[in-house]
């Protein structure tokens, strides 16, 4: 065994009592093997990675158990010995390649420094070794690249450099903490391949810490599933993903969106957010929420024609000296009433900008946005275009910054109702807010609390309630679940599906996650560099993509064949 952890306990004393981040955790890694450590946020998976190399954040400490690395006990080592192990014999790869490199030093200087610290190579020898390392991690023209600074590299290239740094001391074990979370799918696949091939070539042990079942399915040989500081299941990757034994693993895997078939709903994940399902649901048709508004809405829900928008990157007095970024270029599409339209693309493709243009947060340079046949940018003060905009609400990606921390949930949700005087009395407003909160699965008592008292998924429910309070006909969802854990994502997506059916909403659903798109959307548009490559029916797109970029994206999707068949009941 390369690494053996036995009965590890990690405690974080806080002023509200001791939090046990790890409870008698036992793990082992062999040389030449990739161990996936998977769990949702707060499960304690990163803490274990940090504990191995003695880099626990204060005030955390290991209270019991042993960590044996190649037969030596790491816990009893002093700081000097530990420093020798760290870097030389155990390498680390962190999540964010932006911050794990020093922006003021060239890649070469950082690599040579690390090599000189952790091996016997000096000067010319260290330099040659740096070139060799860069070539190993797949960076071409390594000699020229050594003179470059981190900002001259793309995210994926930077992560390759970080991997080269981790390899500098010729370690026996690599701990990779969410190594691909900050990267786009296309780069994620390359980095995972690289880690896997390095593991095989150099006979390394690799621990890969992640929340993403897809990553695990692609790279790991064995999996350990963590929940609430405990390892609930360990085993061969095919066995754990294909035939999970523990209830938590089962519900976790059931919550992973699948790309191969479309399901009506995600199987319920009671094990995780058990107390939300039982709340009272209101009879929408006869409720205030379901009553139609004064303006009747006819025609296509959203029609976008020849939309263009550029951002100024560098200001200048003269037009020719300005540097512009074309964020949206000649975009056309129509969203029919009642359908869910997906907008897919990698980061920087302009999909969120399109959403903000439709919501009226940005004004286009040219082109029109029609909502129910009304141009929203022409004569913005006119009652028709105001009504058209009012019929449209948005749900944002980040559940932490999308709610005003200084307002009670009641005031957040009631804001549009009060502002537009949609009810006759304050009493009625309060009743409606209570009903809304019940309906999104929070319970009316939530109204008197503040946003910080809720978890990410619960906050997203508050966001949904706020959006519904305007009685919208169109809901724009901008990556509504990409900041959430899979289990919570499943419940939120279910809620959105239900609401759409009950209220007959039109949805514009923006995501980078193809399986989620498959589950949610009727039609889909693929965006790249501000342009639309392809618009297609969802099934047609997944079975026979037309554009070469669509094919490329579909090829990169993590292979989920190991997962349990969708019909199996949890």
């Amino acid at each position, binding site marked *: 065994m390369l690494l053996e952890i036995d009965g590890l306990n990690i405690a974080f004393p806080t002023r509200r009592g001791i939090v046990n981040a790890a409870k008698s955790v036992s793990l082992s890694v062999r040389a030449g093997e990739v161990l996936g450590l998977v769990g949702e946020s707060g499960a304690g998976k990163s803490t274990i990675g940090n504990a191995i190399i003695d880099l626990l954040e204060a005030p955390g400490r290991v209270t019991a158990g042993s960590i044996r690395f190649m037969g030596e006990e790491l816990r009893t080592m002093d700081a000097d010995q530990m420093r020798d192990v760290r870097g030389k014999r155990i390498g680390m790869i962190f999540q964010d390649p932006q911050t794990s490199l020093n922006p003021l030093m060239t890649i070469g200087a950082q690599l040579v420094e690390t090599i000189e610290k952790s091996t016997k190579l000096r000067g010319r020898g260290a330099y040659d070794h740096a070139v060799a390392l860069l070539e190993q991690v797949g960076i071409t023209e390594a000699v020229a690249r050594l003179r470059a600074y981190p900002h001259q590299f793309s995210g994926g290239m930077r992560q390759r450099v970080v991997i080269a740094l981790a390899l500098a001391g010729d370690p026996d074990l690599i701990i990779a903490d969410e190594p691909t979370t900050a990267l786009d799918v296309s780069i994620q696949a390359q980095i995972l391949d690289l880690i896997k091939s390095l593991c095989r070539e150099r006979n390394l042990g690799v621990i890969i810490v992640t929340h993403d079942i897809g990553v695990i399915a692609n790279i790991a040989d064995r999996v350990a599933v963590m929940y609430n500081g405990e390892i609930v299941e360990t085993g061969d990757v095919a066995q754990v993903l294909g035939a999970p034994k523990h209830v938590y693993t089962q519900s976790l895997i059931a919550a992973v969106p699948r790309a191969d078939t479309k399901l009506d709903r995600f199987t319920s994940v009671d094990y995780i957010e058990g107390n939300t399902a039982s709340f009272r649901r209101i009879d929408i048709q006869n409720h205030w929420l379901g009553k139609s508004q004064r303006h009747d809405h006819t025609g296509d829900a959203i029609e976008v024609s020849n939309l263009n928008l550029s951002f100024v990157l560098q200001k200048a007095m003269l037009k020719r000296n300005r540097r512009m970024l074309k964020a949206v270029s000649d975009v056309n599409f129509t969203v029919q009433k009642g359908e869910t339209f997906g907008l897919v693309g990698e980061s920087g493709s302009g999909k969120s900008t399109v959403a903000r243009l439709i919501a009226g947060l940005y004004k286009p340079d040219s082109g029109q946005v029609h909502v129910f046949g009304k141009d929203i940018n022409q004569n913005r003060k006119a009652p028709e275009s105001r009504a058209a905009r009012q019929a449209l*609400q948005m749900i944002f990606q980040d559940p932490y910054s999308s709610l005003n921390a200084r307002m009670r949930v009641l005031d957040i949700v009631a804001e549009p109702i009060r502002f537009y005087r949609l009810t006759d009395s304050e009493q009625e407003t309060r009743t409606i807010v209570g009903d809304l909160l019940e309906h999104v699965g929070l319970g009316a008592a939530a109204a008197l609390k503040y946003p910080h008292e809720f978890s990410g998924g619960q906050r997203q429910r508050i966001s949904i309630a706020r959006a519904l309070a305007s009685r919208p006909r169109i809901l724009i969802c901008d990556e509504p679940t990409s900041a959430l854990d899979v289990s919570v994502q499943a419940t939120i997506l279910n809620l959105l599906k239900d609401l759409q059916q009950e209220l007959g909403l039109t949805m514009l659903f923006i995501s980078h996650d193809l399986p989620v798109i498959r589950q949610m959307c009727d039609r889909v548009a693929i965006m790249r560099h501000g342009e639309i490559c392809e618009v297609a029916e969802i099934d047609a797109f997944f079975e026979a993509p037309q554009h070469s970029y669509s094919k490329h994206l579909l090829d990169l999707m993590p292979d989920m064949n190991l997962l349990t068949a969708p019909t199996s009941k949890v």
Partner: protein
Amino acid sequence: MDKIDDKPLTRWQRFKDNDIVWSFLSSPGAMIAAVVASVMILACIFAPVIAPFDPFDPAQISLWDGKLPPSWVEGGQSKYLLGTDNQGRDMFSTILYGGRLSILVGLAAVCLGMVLGVTLGVIAGYVGGVTDAVIMRLADVQLTIPGILLAILINGVGRAALPYELRDEFAIYVVILAIGLTDWPQFARVARGATLVETNKEYVQAARIIGLPSLLIMSRHIMPNTLRPILVIATIGLALAIISEATLSFLGQGIPPTTPSLGTLIRVGNDYLFSGLWWITLFPAVALIVLVFSVNLLGDWLRDALNPKLR
């Protein structure tokens, strides 16, 4: 994952749970400073109840008792704890009354500067463009002039604008105005910075999609979220405003000697410094230093408590 409690927290529970309250209760320096500052401020506010004499009542002042040393020094009288000044007023009472005036001027000036600065700063940050440029350049220009000089200027102009017989009566308001107008750029800068951060957050975009007008977005959503850093500079600004008032009065530009503030007392005492009457200037000066120091300590603690990254 958080559990959903059915009962919302009561105000008191929320208060006790607050990180800032907790940080306060676990930093002894801040607690001592808070006790000292609040004892002084309370004593000054309740000066009419606490002080043994009323220095503004001519019937209680006798020139025969003038220039008496503190009670523990030879020649001192027990009824005048800290001695008397040249006009026979009890030093302890005058310090309490003078402190009252100093604190009042400080608070009012900070409030004025804060209201002005935060309003302008939030508008500059939210509206941007030309409005932003005009407001912030104005602030920059004002910051190139030393604060105390500007306060003297505003104070002088303000006094000159008043008819002669009203000058003493309104002197205090002129001083407040002078210090408040000198203060605002600090508040505007911080408020603008915080506004730029908040405006990009999604809750502001959500408010815009709802269709709320800009004024409502600024006042209801952005302003409350900029208050944390504002609170810090307001606390430190209070100490500075008290010093500014004392400086103005010391220079004879501020509060007239008939209604003495701490600064006026120090100035009066300054004339007697070399004739052995040290108590007339020492005690008001010590009171001023202790007050400003404890308020500053509170401000420092507040800055650290509100910005966990500094810890």
